[in-house]
């Protein structure tokens, strides 16, 4: 890969990784360059992002490189959050959906499925009594198990949790695979 392609690769990788980011050696392995070259590449990317027409940059925290919005543009989000509350619902809906379908479930499991830290969202949903502690998992650390509340059912106009729409995995389990995915079994018919 030439310099431009490496920069592009770095940008794409850090974009998709989002808040999770990548460590220097992960990037080195993926881009097939040395860690020193990764450092230089990141420096060059940051340099390019200093242009006023760029709204993101790379930050280096806790051993990870992460793409991040420049400070001044984060303020734009205050407007987003205050004008359009639906925007806030996305993370909340994801967590509620996971809890609703997979309850009882621990925070670690929710985070594994979502692929991102969800502590803040879970805390807010508990405060809003959409989800609640329903027990503890019997493993070291005894993590909290979460489940949905009656407020959740009320909000979504459900009389019970059984009324949730069925999941694709349930349909698949119930019906034969052949209806849903093309079967590859070939049979020769000779007339």
């Amino acid at each position: 890969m030439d310099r431009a392609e490496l920069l592009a690769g770095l940008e794409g990788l850090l974009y998709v990784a989002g808040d999770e980011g990548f460590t220097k050696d992960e990037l080195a392995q993926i881009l097939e360059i040395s860690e020193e070259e990764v450092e230089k590449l990141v420096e060059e990317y940051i340099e390019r992002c200093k242009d006023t027409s760029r709204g993101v940059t790379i930050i280096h925290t806790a051993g990870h490189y992460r793409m991040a919005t420049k400070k001044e543009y984060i303020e734009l989000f205050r407007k987003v959050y205050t004008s359009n509350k639906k925007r806030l619902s996305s993370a909340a809906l994801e967590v509620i959906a996971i809890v609703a379908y997979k309850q009882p479930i621990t925070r670690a499991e929710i985070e594994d499925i979502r692929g991102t830290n969800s502590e803040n969202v879970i805390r807010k949903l508990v405060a809003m009594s959409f989800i609640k502690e329903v027990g503890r998992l019997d493993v070291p650390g005894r993590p909290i198990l979460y489940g949905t509340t009656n407020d959740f059912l009320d909000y979504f106009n459900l009389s019970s949790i059984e009324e949730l729409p069925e999941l694709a995995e349930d349909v698949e389990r119930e019906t034969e695979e052949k209806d849903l995915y093309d079967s590859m079994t070939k049979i020769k018919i000779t007339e």
Partner: protein
Amino acid sequence: MEYLVTIDAFQGPLDLLLYLIKEARIDIDNVNVSEITQQYLDYLHAMEDLNLEIASEYLRLAAYLIYIKSRKMLPQSNLDDENISYEENPEEQLKRRLKLYSIFKDVVSFFQEQETERENYLTKIPSDLSEELKIETKDFLLQDVDIYDLLSAYNRVLKRYSLHKPIKTKIKPQTITIDERIQELSDLFRTRKKLRFTEIFEENVTKELIVVTFMAILELTKHHVIRLHQDTLFQDIYIEYLDEEMREAHG
């Protein structure tokens, strides 16, 4: 005649009929229903011979095809009773159904292409800035969402989970030598003179790292760089960094 057939290749009787018409290289408009009926029945017989279950809807179409065929053989006058004269000729109707179905079947490739195209673009999970911007819990509301939005959110998570699960396993964990670990620990002890053994480790510690660390600590103790002590059995082990003076006293 030899057919290479996939049992489930047909999306129903109309699909099979279309396939046969296409095989015979005829236009739907010019199809001779009598001829195609024979091929359709041959096909079903072949399936039967192989003891394959034939869905009733295939047999229903077979019956319909036979009806059309027999109808053509009857004198026209018999069909001119009131009930039927208002209805479309069944053969024409069948051709119309086939044409309509084939139009949708043709457009399937467009959806396939679009499905493949979209996979070339990866997107990330939305970042949550509500903490950073100190958005209050009371503003953290769900608005205008229904149960379908909930299902959609679940599917979004699932899709991301299957598509975007980083293959971290492909990335080999970095190995560290005892010498490197000694250097790391020496740097650490210079800033913190006394700490517990368990404090040395960050999250996601591997067994290998624990072993290397233990060896490094023994090595450092041997050279009187640090001193270990433990109040009682199974209690935390304390590591104390010895400065030059103390080191000489121990030496």
